[in-house]
């Protein structure tokens, strides 16, 4: 269960960062047909949590045969716009002269992206990673729905599974031990990377 949680949290954090870096780069540094449209399409998803559209999303995942799989756990939660917006805001503050210089020197757009933009965004990426890792680790409803196979359960949802049904007496020591295990990784991340965490929180939600 710990491993499943780890894979899910890492997958969500890394996947979200990659796709939103790319799309933010495209939206800020290019003028192409449909740019506004794409921007608004992403924008619309900004505040809508997965909880609202669970039943139809579940059907989509079931249709793809992605129940009880890591991709089913990860992909629906990547579809959100917060990270894209954070990177967009950050790219806007990068001085124009850098892009100009790169262009004069004949660097291709991707070269500019990898050699200049990416190193400059390092702190932002790290800060966002902390937030997204916690977000991914703490998911509850989604894994509860799509993982019926106990070997795919994440630890946060697994706790509920340990509660007895009916009038059985709960095995509290085991439940509490599992809760502690479920708490440790994100708490360690928050405490050890406090500065990055605060920065990521304040930046990504504003």
């Amino acid at each position, binding site marked *: 269960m710990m491993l499943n949680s780890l894979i899910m949290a890492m997958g969500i954090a890394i996947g979200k960062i990659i796709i939103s870096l790319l799309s933010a780069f495209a939206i800020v540094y*290019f003028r192409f047909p449909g740019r506004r449209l794409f921007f608004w399409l992403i924008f619309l998803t900004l505040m809508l949590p997965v909880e609202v559209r*669970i039943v139809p*999303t579940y059907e989509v995942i079931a249709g793809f045969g992605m129940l009880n799989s890591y991709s089913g756990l990860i992909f629906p939660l990547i579809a959100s716009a917060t990270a894209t917006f954070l990177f967009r805001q950050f790219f806007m503050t990068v001085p124009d002269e850098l892009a100009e210089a790169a262009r004069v020197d004949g660097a291709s757009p991707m070269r500019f992206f990898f050699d200049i933009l990416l190193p400059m965004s390092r702190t932002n990426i790290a800060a966002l990673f902390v937030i997204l890792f916690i977000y991914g680790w703490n998911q509850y409803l989604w894994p509860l729905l799509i993982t019926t196979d106990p070997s795919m359960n994440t630890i946060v949802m697994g706790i*509920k599974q340990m509660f007895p049904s009916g009038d059985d007496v709960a095995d509290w020591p085991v439940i509490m031990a599992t809760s502690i295990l479920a*708490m440790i990784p994100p708490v360690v991340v928050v405490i050890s990377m406090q500065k990055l965490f605060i920065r990521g929180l304040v930046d990504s*939600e504003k």
Partner: protein
Amino acid sequence: MEKRVTFKGIWLPLLLVLPQIVITAVFFFYPAGQAIWQSLFIPDPFGLSMQYVGLGNFEYLLSNSYYRASFVTTAVFSILVTLVSMGVALYLADRLIKGPGVYRTLLIWPYAVAPAVAGVLWLFMFNTRVGVVTWYLGLLGYDWNHVLNGEEAMGLVVVASAWGRISYNFLFFLAGLQAIPRTVIEAAAIDGAHFWTRFRTIVFPLLSPTTFFLLVVNIVYAFFETFGVIHTITSGGPQQSTTILVYKVYSDGFVGQDLGSSAAQSVILLVLVGVLTIIQFKFIERRVHY
């Protein structure tokens, strides 16, 4: 806001936005469209056919006393969670604005605890059979039983939801308070303004952008992310007294298998979140002019 310097090319940027657009389309727009579509139908119990009912699902929901009760429950729940978590956070931020960093660390870590885990922890303390708090309350002659008493159940889910949220609000209030120049407050203090006057006339107005932002964010949190708390502690009970709207979408859709009604509820929630988002963005736009 537009960049002055841009790169040329049409296919490269399209390729770059493609992953996000595909994922958004498949896992966001398609399900949202499905929700709207399904909300117009009632499927038969075996899922073999669907009967078109127009807005029948919505009419049924809005005239259904359980659903209306769930609206009230959600409103009470989110107002309580927001007030409790923001109130405590503001008090702590005001006390600890100059305190050592240790306090901050101690206050921040609950953010990392999943709502579902927080629910389990609080449930353990207030458990009717083995809970520590229940035992002490029993010594005081109070018989705590959130399994039977709806108000106690509500109180417990509110406390468990607000607890994890305090650290979030605390950080924003702390940042907001630190941005207020000390000189203004000192000047007021020299002019003889008491603590409460200073707070009401200087600190609170200067803090209002932060407060308003947190208000919206916390309401959204109470609406959706508290599912874990409710599911672990009360499962919506007793007698639906803690069934908030999101929980009802889940219980009607997955437990009750009433897909048409669940889809209609999703659509109603979509509209609610949409309104909240618009309010928030109006506010952000306004703040830019400051």
